[in-house]
C-alpha cells in the first residue's frame, strides 16, 4: 500500500468555498477517533507492502490535540508496517499552530506540514470566512520553520474577483520571501452547495472573467518557474526534492487507503468511498454494518483514469506503460485521438510519451475528455 489517508471531519467554521464533509461540533470527536481506529483495524489486512506516506486531511486535522493524534498513531503503527522514511503530512490552519503543537508533531513523527494560507490579505480571508488573519499565517510559517519543519507546503487561491493582479503578485512574492519549498495554488471553483454559490446566484459577487483567471494562472506558472519551482501537476509547484510523495502516488495510479467519513480508497482495481455523515459513519462502524460503497474499475475506466491523472502531471503519459497496461484497441484509440491533439499543439511529445503543452494546460479537461474512451 503506497498511501494512507486519514480524514478528520471537524472544522471551527465553514469556509465560504468549501463543500467538503465536516462538522463544526466536536461533540463526537472521541467516538470518531475510536471509529477511525476500528476502521484501521478492519482495513489492515488490505495492505501487503509497507506504507510509504501518511496524510492527515480534512476538515481541519490541526484541531486534534496530542492525545487524539497519539491514539491514532498507535493504532496505525500496531496495524500497519510503516516505511522508515515515510512522508507524514498534516494539514494545519495557521490559527492552530503554536510552538507546543509543533513540538508534539515532531514527537509523533510528522515531517511535512500543509498550511492553509489561501491569501496574505485579510479582506480575502474574510471573504473566504477563514478563521485566521494574514499576520497569523506568516507567523505560523515562521514558527514551523523555527521548529525545524523544512518540508512545508502552502495553499493559495487565485482567480476570484477581489484578487487583483497586484495582490496575486504579492502573494506569490511572499511565498518566495518565506522560502516555502512547495505550493498548491487553485483557481477558485464555486461548488453548488457553498456560501459562495449562494452569493453568486444572488448577484452579490461576480465571477472573474476567464481571460483574467488565465492571466493569473499564466503569471503563477511564469513566476514560480522563475524562482526555481517545477509545476509537477496542474495546481502543484515544488522546489527540487519537495514534490509531495503522497499526492504524486494518486496521480501515478498507486494504491491508497482512506480512513474516516467520506474518505476514498483505491485497492486492487476497486475504488471505495466511506459514508460521509459523521454520525452514520460512527454508528455503522460500531454496529458492523456496511460503511462504504465500492466501484469496480474496468479496463476502459482504468484507461480514462490513467489519462486523467497522468496528463495533469509534468511526467505525462508514459507510452510504454500505456501499451503494457491496456489492450490494443485502447492503444489504437489513444493513437488516433492524440494525433489530433498533437496537431492542435495541445499536447506535445516527450522522451517517454506525451504531456500537456503550455496552451493545453488551460483547457486540460477538454483535452483529457477528448482522449477518453
Amino acid at each position, binding site marked *: 500500500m503506497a498511501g494512507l489517508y486519514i480524514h478528520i471531519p471537524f472544522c471551527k467554521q465553514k469556509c465560504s468555498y468549501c463543500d467538503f464533509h465536516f462538522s463544526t461540533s466536536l461533540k463526537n470527536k472521541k467516538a470518531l477517533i475510536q471509529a477511525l481506529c476500528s476502521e484501521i483495524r478492519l482495513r489492515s489486512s488490505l495492505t501487503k507492502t509497507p506504507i510509504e506516506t501518511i496524510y492527515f486531511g480534512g476538515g481541519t486535522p490541526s484541531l486534534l490535540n496530542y492525545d487524539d493524534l497519539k491514539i491514532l498513531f498507535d493504532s496505525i503503527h500496531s496495524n500497519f508496517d510503516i516505511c522508515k522514511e515515510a512522508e507524514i503530512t498534516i494539514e494545519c490552519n495557521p490559527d492552530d499552530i503554536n510552538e507546543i503543537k509543533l513540538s508534539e508533531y515532531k514527537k509523533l513523527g510528522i515531517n511535512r506540514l500543509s498550511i492553509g494560507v489561501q491569501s496574505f490579505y485579510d479582506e480575502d480571508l474574510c471573504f473566504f470566512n477563514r478563521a485566521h488573519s494574514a499576520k497569523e499565517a506568516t507567523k505560523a510559517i515562521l514558527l514551523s520553520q523555527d521548529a525545524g519543519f523544512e518540508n512545508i507546503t502552502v495553499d493559495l487561491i487565485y482567480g476570484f474577483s477581489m484578487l487583483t493582479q497586484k495582490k496575486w503578485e504579492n502573494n506569490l512574492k511572499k511565498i518566495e520571501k518565506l522560502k516555502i519549498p512547495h505550493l498548491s495554488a487553485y*483557481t*477558485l471553483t464555486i461548488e453548488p452547495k457553498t456560501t459562495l454559490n449562494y452569493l453568486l446566484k444572488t448577484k452579490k459577487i461576480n465571477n472573474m472573467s476567464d481571460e483574467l483567471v*488565465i492571466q493569473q*494562472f499564466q503569471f503563477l506558472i511564469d513566476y514560480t518557474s522563475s524562482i526555481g519551482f517545477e509545476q509537477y501537476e*496542474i495546481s502543484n509547484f515544488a522546489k527540487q526534492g519537495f514534490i509531495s510523495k503522497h499526492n504524486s502516488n494518486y496521480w501515478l495510479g498507486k494504491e491508497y487507503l482512506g480512513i474516516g467519513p467520506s474518505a476514498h480508497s483505491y485497492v486492487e482495481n476497486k475504488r471505495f*468511498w466511506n459514508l460521509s455523515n459523521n454520525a452514520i459513519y460512527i454508528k455503522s462502524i460500531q454496529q458492523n454494518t456496511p460503511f462504504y460503497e465500492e466501484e469496480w474499475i474496468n479496463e476502459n475506466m482504468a484507461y*480514462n483514469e490513467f489519462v486523467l491523472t497522468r496528463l495533469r502531471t509534468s511526467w505525462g503519459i508514459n507510452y510504454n506503460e500505456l501499451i503494457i497496461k491496456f489492450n490494443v484497441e485502447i492503444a489504437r484509440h489513444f493513437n488516433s485521438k492524440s494525433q489530433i491533439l498533437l496537431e*492542435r499543439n495541445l499536447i506535445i511529445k516527450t522522451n517517454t510519451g506525451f504531456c500537456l503543452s503550455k496552451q493545453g494546460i*488551460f483547457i486540460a479537461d477538454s483535452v483529457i*475528455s477528448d482522449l477518453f474512451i
Partner: protein
Amino acid sequence: MENIRNFCIIAHIDHGKSTLADRLLQTTGTISDRELQEQTLDDMDLERERGITIKSHAIQMEYTFQGKPYILNLIDTPGHVDFSYEVSRSIASCEGALLIVDATQGIQAQTISNLYLAIENDLEIIPVLNKMDLDSAMPEEVKDQIVDLIGCKREDIIPASGKTGLGVEEILKAVIERVPAPVGDPNAPLQALIFDSVFDSYRGINAYFKVLNGEIKKGEKVKFIATNKEYHADEIGTLKLKQVPKSVIKTGDVGYIISGIKVAKEVKVGDTITTVANPAPAIQGFEDVKPMVFAGIYPIETDDYEELRDSMEKLQLNDASLTFEPESSAALGFGFRCGFLGMLHMEIIQERLEREFGMTVITTVPNVSYHCFLTSDKEKAIVLNNPSDFPDPSRIERIEEPYIKASVITKSDYVGSIMTLCIEKRGELTNQVYLTSNRVELNFNIPLSEIVFDFYDRLKSISRGYASFDYHPIGFRESNLVKMDILLNGDQVDALSALVHKDNAYDLGKKICNKLRELIPRQQFNIAIQAAIGSKIIARESLSALRKDVTAKCYGGDISRKRKLLEKQKEGKKKMKQIGSVEVPPKAFLAVLKLND
C-alpha cells in the same frame, strides 16, 4: 343499423374536446370513474403533454335512450392544421359532428376549416358551447358567432361544461335524435373505409374502419383495394376502452381488423377494405397524403442509419402522413428526406423518434417543394425538395415556390402588428372581415416557405396567443430565390443550405451566423462562421477558441468523480455532429427557425 350513431368532434386546441369526450364515456358507463384518467382518448404521452390529439382514435359507447339501446361511435379527430387529411378521413366516417366552441374564446380559424369539411360531407352539426362554468364565458356573443357561421337556431346550441358535466345528457340526446343513422346496403358487397391505423409490436397493424356497405366477418379473406393486397381477417372487433373481438361487424358500424400486416405501407388511411370472394369498387376520395414541408433527418452516429430506417418505418405505421426516402449529405452522411404535413408534424416526429425509439436525430433546415425551370427546357418543372439538389444558378430560367391562402382570426387590437408580420413575410392581404365588433378574419396570400421560418411563434407572441391560423395551398408562383450556403471554417455545411428570397438574404445570413455562434460551443480552435451566396460571402461571425477548461483539484477522492464528470463531457461531444473538425450540436441545424428568440 338504425340504432347506430357515428359522430366526431370538431374543436380548436384547448377548447375542451378531450374533457368533454371523457364525460360522454363516463355518462354512458363505457369507462368507470376509476379508469378515467384525464383525457382518456389521448393515449400517447406526447399528446397528453402537448394537449393536442395528434392521432385520431375511435371508441364505442352503449347508451339506452327512451328504452331503446343505441351504439354511439365517437371518432376523435386531431385539431391542428397539420393534420387535416386525417380529419377529413375521420369526418368521412361519420354522419354527425359535435362542434365544440369555447364560450370564453369563440370560434377559431381551425374550427372553421374543419367545420366546412364536415358541412361538405353532409354531416349533421350539433353546436356545443363549452366551458360555460367559467366566469369569463360570453355565451351570447359566441352564440351569435355560431348562428352566423352555420345558420342554426339559437336554441339548438347546447350549453355544456366538461368540467361540471353540464349538458352531457343533452348532447347524448341530440346525437341520438339529430344525427342520422348510417345508411348503407347490408346485402351489398363489403366496402369498409379505413380511417386510422395503429401499430402494435406483438400483433402487427390494427386498422380502424367503418363499414359503409355489407359486413365483415372474422376469418374472411379480405382485400385492401389501394394497395391491392389480400389478407385473412384474423381478428375483428369493436373499440371500447380496450378492443372487444367480435365475429362480425355490420353495416354502419365502426371496428378494427388485425390481419397480421407487418409492413407499414400496406395500410393507408382512406383505403377501402372489401372481400376477395365478392369484391366491391373502392370508395371515392382516397388520396395519398401530400407532404408540405421537407427536411432531412439524420442519425448522429452514422452507424445508426439502419436503426433509424427501422424506427421511421414503425412510425409510419400509425402515421400514414409521414413520407421519407433515403438521401445523403456531405456533412451528415446517410439519412432520410422526410415529408411532413407541417411544422408541428415535423417536431412531433422528431420527438417521437427520441421518446419511443431512443433515437437522437439531427433535423435539417426545413424547406418546401420548389419548381425549377431550366433555360434548356423552359416548360418542364423540376421538383426540388432539397436545397442541395439545386442546379447551378446560370442554368436556371426561373424558380416557382408554393403559395398558400392563409386565414388568421384575431382580436382587432392585434390586426396592425399581424399585418406587419405578414408583409415582412412577403404576404399580400386579400381580405379583411370583422366577424364581430372585435374579432377580425384576415386573409393573406403568402409563400409557404415563409410560414416554415419562425412564423407560428411570432404570430403567437404578437397576438399574446389570441390568433388562430389556418391555410391551404393555392399553387406556385415565380419568385426571386437564391441559395444561401453556410460555411464553418471554410467547409460548406450542405445541411444548413436554404433557399431564401434575394431581398432577405443579407439580413437572414447575418442572423443565422449570429445564432450559430450562440449555439456552437467554444472549441479548441477558432471557428469562422460564414454565409455565402455562390462564392460571395454575405455574412461572417467568429467564435474564439476555448480559453479555460481545467479542474483545479484532483486528489484521491476526486479521481472517480472527475472521471465521471469528464466522461459526461465526452458523451456530450459524442452527441454533436462533426463537420470538418468542428463539433456542431444537433439543435444548431434548426437554428434558422428560432432566429428571433
